[in-house]
């Protein structure tokens, strides 16, 4: 097979596996801080139980993120040497700042956050939680800045085929960066709130009615219910930003073949790139024009304007629909769950059973969203600057295929083990309920007599 497509598949597999875990840790850090602060304020040990259940998930997710992240730092060189040769002057400093300001901060204080409860004062432990949560968010900031720059490059000039930085502010805060950052942070928040709600629903189904279960369940459901409408709004704004800067991506997402007014919103279709048409199309008349231009006569860009210079239509069309569909399902589920929790103080069994698989809905939507935006950048690696085909390394296709197969096998096994542990932790917490042993909680470090109970 072609080394280019194999390299893309391998990089895609690695980065897809990687992004699952930062998506959890970015927001889970802040949720843990919330649990910790509630405990500090109320002295209610149920908050601390919730903290200790979820800090284990955090530790495991963080470890998965670290090891898959190490893989990423090598893959730039092994798969895309041309990338750094051409845009290294831009990408380098952004990556360096991510490592220097975020990675070390997270890694150093994670130890204290996980194991340091008896060794430092409660205040320092809270501070460690703040620093870890801040570190994960900061690393999202830098990597999103770099990714957005690849989508909508700004603040540079080309000299002899190599990009040189001119304006760092323009590079970091490039046109799509604020939208993408907000969209991703909200995605992380939703992923975590559905994960917490889903695993708490699993505990609920197993008869666990402990205070720590209720606290986690409410936190998950209400956070999701609040974030999802904001996310829909932010996603819409992000789409309008893409329309302005990468119209060919929008054309492919909507499977719109010809530029013009009165473009329908296609709900279902099998886009056929060879025939330049949609088969089995079901569409709402004028829908796309209304959404993108806020008028039925609004002109929506079509693929005919970008011959040979637009992304593949089929994967874009469908990954976008999977993301939006998942988002709408999240809206329905989180609002009904919030309603029942608020009014009835209980969950109907069918809803709880739906919430358990929905624990992974955030992952699905996040991956679908990333596929939309990343495949949507093709055939460019850096829009208008560097084509993906020009960055691939000289490694033989057979090498890439072999390693890709092993990576995939490894990732599947690790995902099974990871999900198995999550379920195991939830069931164990359900069995222990409020009787689980609580590690000593202290206001003063060491040597003080332990524990609140």
């Amino acid at each position: 097979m072609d080394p280019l497509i194999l390299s893309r598949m391998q990089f895609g597999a690695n980065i897809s596996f990687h992004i699952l875990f930062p998506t959890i840790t970015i927001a889970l850090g802040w949720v843990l801080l919330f649990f910790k602060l509630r405990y500090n304020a109320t002295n209610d040990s149920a908050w601390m139980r919730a903290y200790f259940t979820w800090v284990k998930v955090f530790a495991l997710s963080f470890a998965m993120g670290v090891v898959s992240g190490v893989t990423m730092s090598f893959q730039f060189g092994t798969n895309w040497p041309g990338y750094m040769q051409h845009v290294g002057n831009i990408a380098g400093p952004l990556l360096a700042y991510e490592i220097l300001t975020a990675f070390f901060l997270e890694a150093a204080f994670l130890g204290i956050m996980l194991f340091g409860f008896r060794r430092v004062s409660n205040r320092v432990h809270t501070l460690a939680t703040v620093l870890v949560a801040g570190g994960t968010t900061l690393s999202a900031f830098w990597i999103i800045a770099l990714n957005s720059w690849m989508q909508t490059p700004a603040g540079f000039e080309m000299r002899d085929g190599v990009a040189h930085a001119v304006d760092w502010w323009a590079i970091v805060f490039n046109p799509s960066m604020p939208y993408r950052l907000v969209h991703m942070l909200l995605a992380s928040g939703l992923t975590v709130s559905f994960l917490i709600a889903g695993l708490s629903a699993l505990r609920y189904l197993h008869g666990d009615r402990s205070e720590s279960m209720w606290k986690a369940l409410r936190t998950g459901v209400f956070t999701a219910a609040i974030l999802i409408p904001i996310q829909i709004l932010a996603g819409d704004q992000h789409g309008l930003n893409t329309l302005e800067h990468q119209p060919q991506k929008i054309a492919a997402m909507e499977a719109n073949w010809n530029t013009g007014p009165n473009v329908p919103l296609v709900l279902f279709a099998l886009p056929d790139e060879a025939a330049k048409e949609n088969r089995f199309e079901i569409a709402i008349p004028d829908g796309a024009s209304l959404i993108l231009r806020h008028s039925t006569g609004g002109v929506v860009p079509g693929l005919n304007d970008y011959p040979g210079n637009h992304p593949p239509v089929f994967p874009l069309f469908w990954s976008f629909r999977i993301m939006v569909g998942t988002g709408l399902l999240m809206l329905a589920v989180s609002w009904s769950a919030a309603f029942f929790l608020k009014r009835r103080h209980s969950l109907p069994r069918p809803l709880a059973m739906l919430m358990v698989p929905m624990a992974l809905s955030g992952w699905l939507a996040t991956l679908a969203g990333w596929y939309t935006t990343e495949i949507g950048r093709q055939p460019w690696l850096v829009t208008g600057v560097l084509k993906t085909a020009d960055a691939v390394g000289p490694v033989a296709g057979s090498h890439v295929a072999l390693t890709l197969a092993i990576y995939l096998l490894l990732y599947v096994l690790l995902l099974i083990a990871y999900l198995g542990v999550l379920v195991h932790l939830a069931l164990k917490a359900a069995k222990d309920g409020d009787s689980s042993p609580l590690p000593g909680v202290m206001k003063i470090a060491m040597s003080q007599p332990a524990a609140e109970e």
Partner: protein
Amino acid sequence: MSYDWSTLLPLIFAGLMGLAILIYVILDGFDLGIGILFAAAEDTEQDTMIAAIGPFWDANETWLVLAVGLLLVAFPLAHGLILTALYIPVFVLLVGLILRGVAFDFRAKVPAGKKHRWNRIFFLGSVVASLAQGYMLGVYVLGLDVGVGGMAFGVLVAFCLAAAYAAMGAAWVIYKAEGELQKKAVRWLRTALVLTALGMAAVSLATPFASPRIFDKWFVWPQMLYLSPLPILSALLFLWLWRQTFHLPKPDDRHALRPFLTLAAIFALGFAGLAWSFYPFVVPDKLTIWQAASAPESLAIILVGTVVVLPVIIFYSFYAYRVFGGKATDLTYD
């Protein structure tokens, strides 16, 4: 050689990268080593050994990300050349690091019956990662030679580096453990030390004889005189540490950290020797640090961040080590 920024910056970054690699090898060396020694330890000892590295390993591995990151951002041409030449060993290293990293967390969280499986994976991943690093070092030393000779030498260095990491691991256990396990670690250290010395001697001899350029850097008067402290001091430290293993552990646990510090010093000396051999090349005999470097303005903006942040990183890393100082006890989430 003029001393303007475009000359100085690549030099500074080569130094920073070297520092990151050295810190990585010393720090991740001891936790990889503990993984290697897992095979020789009992169940309860394994828990203590994990507790001795639990709070640190994430941060230790981050130094590898920094080292590779600096290679990537400061010497992008070299990053591409080296890593495509070492495509398969890099892949093996990554699989090893992935397995051991996650095994670390899984073994503590799975139902008790499955713990054994993750212990084995932790051992296997640590061994594979150490061997892969040693192999890469061997191949790099011979100028990225991937012929039969280069591969054979790579295999030799692979085993020696694994032994060196095992020695680091044993030294760390001596510092963090008590009783029977500590005594056991002293014996581990003695065995691993022999192999480590052998490996360092092999690399030291192979490097100059593989490249006439490197030969001329070492065996020319008066350089020979100035450089002689490197091998002599290393040999003395080896001998001294070897003798120490017959007196450890000492009453009141005095000098428990000494073996680790001595090994760190030996690593640093060996590393200085390698650095002298390869300077000014970042890809041996192909690319100098100036040919491979990024644009000065990009390096400058990274340097600003590094100068501000690196001391802070070192400061809070020390703090984290101090919080978890003393003997390792059961590792719990508290």
